[in-house]
């Protein structure tokens, strides 16, 4: 099932007479359970792509379909509701609420979905357990490492069974090994059917994805297919 379908999307930013192309005719289709990474230098359009996919900005050309529905066809209220139900965001900063425990931060996302507080808290604990984060549930963000905070932020972003997770440089501030555990967590979510789109310029993290697309000057500049079997690399010294 296609979760996200970006069809020839473009985004032009205007400021007075200045016209800057942020994204130019980009098409990308992401299925349930698929992990796609977008790579490219600063200013190549990675973040713009994510902002369009997440409905935070509207394309100036092309269409964005979420589970087959054109976002342009939804009113402001309908759009906000669809985005909140279907899409989770993770950014470089975890942005957890400091006065709530990790579990309460996750539970809050469920309560916003209309889940009763008690059930939300139980759901949050269950989710943290399933992600191997059960031990940190009762701690406040200030008592967590950067990596743990980011993992809790991911749990919060996917709480309530959202079908699409958009992650913009979520490992930017983390060391190599912690960054890797965050990638492991994203992979794990894909296994449950969630689609993930990651924007990063860290190729080691992009390599966790099923597919890596390259952006340059707002355009798609290439892509790797789904990964080949390991035998293609090792033993033969060949890469397909």
């Amino acid at each position, binding site marked *: 099932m296609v979760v996200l379908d970006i069809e020839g999307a473009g985004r032009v930013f205007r400021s007075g007479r200045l016209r800057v192309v942020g994204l130019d005719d980009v098409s990308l289709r992401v299925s349930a359970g698929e992990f796609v990474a977008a*790579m490219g*230098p600063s200013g190549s359009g990675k973040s713009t792509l994510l902002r369009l996919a997440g409905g935070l900005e509207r394309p100036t050309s092309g269409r964005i379909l979420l589970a087959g529905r054109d976002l342009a066809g939804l009113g402001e209220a309908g759009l906000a509701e669809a985005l909140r139900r279907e899409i989770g965001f993770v950014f470089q900063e975890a942005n957890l609420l400091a006065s709530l425990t990790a579990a309460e931060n996750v539970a809050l996302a469920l309560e916003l979905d209309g889940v009763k507080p008690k059930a939300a808290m139980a759901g949050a604990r269950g989710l943290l357990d399933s992600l191997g984060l059960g031990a940190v549930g009762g701690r406040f963000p200030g008592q967590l490492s950067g990596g743990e905070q980011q993992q809790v932020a991911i749990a919060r972003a996917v709480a309530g069974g959202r079908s699409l997770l958009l992650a913009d440089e979520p490992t930017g501030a983390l060391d190599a090994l912690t960054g890797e555990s965050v990638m*492991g967590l994203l*992979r794990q979510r894909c296994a449950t059917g969630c689609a993930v789109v990651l924007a990063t*310029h860290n*190729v*080691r993290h*992009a*390599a*966790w*994805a099923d597919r*890596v697309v*390259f952006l*340059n000057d707002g355009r798609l*500049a*290439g*892509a*790797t*297919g789904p*990964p*080949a*079997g*390991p035998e*293609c*690399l*090792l*033993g033969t010294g060949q*890469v*397909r």
Partner: protein
Amino acid sequence: MSVRHSLLALLSAGPTHGYRLKTEFEAATGDVWPLNVGQVYTTLARLERDGLVTAEADADGQKVYEITGAGRDELGRWFETPVPREMIPRQELAIKLVFAMQSGMADVAAVVQRQRVATVRALQDVTRLKAAAESAGNLAWLLMLDALVFQADAEVRWLDMCQARLARENTAAGKARRHPEIPAERAVERSS
């Protein structure tokens, strides 16, 4: 890659046959560097000549190799000494890019992009192996795979740098054409 020291390291765990050393070496390094049997026996012969191992025939007449005290000392020195960086291995990719640029026969940016896709694809494969090694708790194999990951990472970042330099060069060249009065270096500054 030091076959000599790798064999000493394997022998430090106990005496064994030459053909076992080949399979043990390949298992330890995940078949990334296949060894041929001839290489193993030539190296063992040199180690024996240098007094770093001894060889004795077993009941079936097969040679069993054992590390000597001098062999252990040599192995210890290897672990204590950093791998020299003076010897830069010949890199086909770097050479290819240099000549792509010099010959004017190839679109250098396209060469860079094709390589990037291929390298990232290889990196995806290694990353999948890493996930498997992680769940199997195979630490030595994980370190080995990390080495491959970081080599590919370095290559891709270098390609990014090449691409950025090419783009800057093109912008500067374009500006120089439009404004011949601006010296090339200043055009470069303006574009960055």
